[in-house]
């Protein structure tokens, strides 16, 4: 959702698509702000773990929307990042 919203804003400003696209992007970004509040952890940790997921989703997003095939380094790198996020969020405390 966040990347989707960011991507729409990107389309608006960098690819000269209509302002409507940019506005929709803005609304999606706002919705995105609501979702993490549903998580059962405190703010910093929720957002930090989310950052790891964010890394792999941007690679996947690039793959699907921009048709950039991820290379070996991107795949390994994003897996490592996700693993880091899992440690942050799910390690027993």
């Amino acid at each position, binding site marked *: 959702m*966040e*990347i989707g*919203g*960011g*991507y729409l*804003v*990107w389309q608006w*400003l*960098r690819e000269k698509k209509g302002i409507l696209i*940019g506005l929709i*992007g*803005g609304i999606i*970004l*706002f919705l*995105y*702000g*609501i979702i*993490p*509040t549903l998580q059962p952890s*405190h*703010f*910093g*940790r*929720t*957002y*930090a*773990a*989310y*950052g*790891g997921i*964010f*890394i792999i989703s*941007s*690679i996947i*997003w*690039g*793959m699907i929307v*921009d048709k*950039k*095939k991820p*290379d*070996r*380094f*991107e795949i*390994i*790198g*994003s*897996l*490592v*990042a*996700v*693993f*880091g*996020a*899992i*440690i*942050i*969020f799910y*390690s027993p*405390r």
Partner: protein
Amino acid sequence: VDWDIKKIRKILITLFFFLLAGLCEIGGGYLVWLWLREDMSWILGAIGGFILFLYGIVPTFQPSYSHRIYAAYGGIFIVMALLWGLIFEGIVPDMSDVIGAAMACAGVAIIYMHLEEEKKNCGRIISLRSQHNHCYSSAILSGRTYGNRWRLFGMAMA
């Protein structure tokens, strides 16, 4: 590594926009969080939503293209989120927070490694024109041919 001024400036600009984006995103998200989780005024939530919209604009100032930029930003984002929790909520990141953050940053470094390596190889075999052209365009367009790259790597090593 040739650290000329231009390169350093580009890195600094990139870093600046990352930090700015992180502030907008985490700050905006935090306001929305205060509104919904801490039962504060909806005005905070609305301001947060606007800041999140600004956050969508910031990365468009980045000099290079989208999905890998976003990945790198994710690494910076993690560190900033933990710092935010430390500063505004007074929650000290524990051991697994730190380890996880370090791993995520390592992941980002790996994602970026391939580009650097490709550039390096391109520099070394600049005399082989066709190879160089292939390499150059793939560094820019991220077209991939593994075999070729590893062969180039071998040549560069030799």
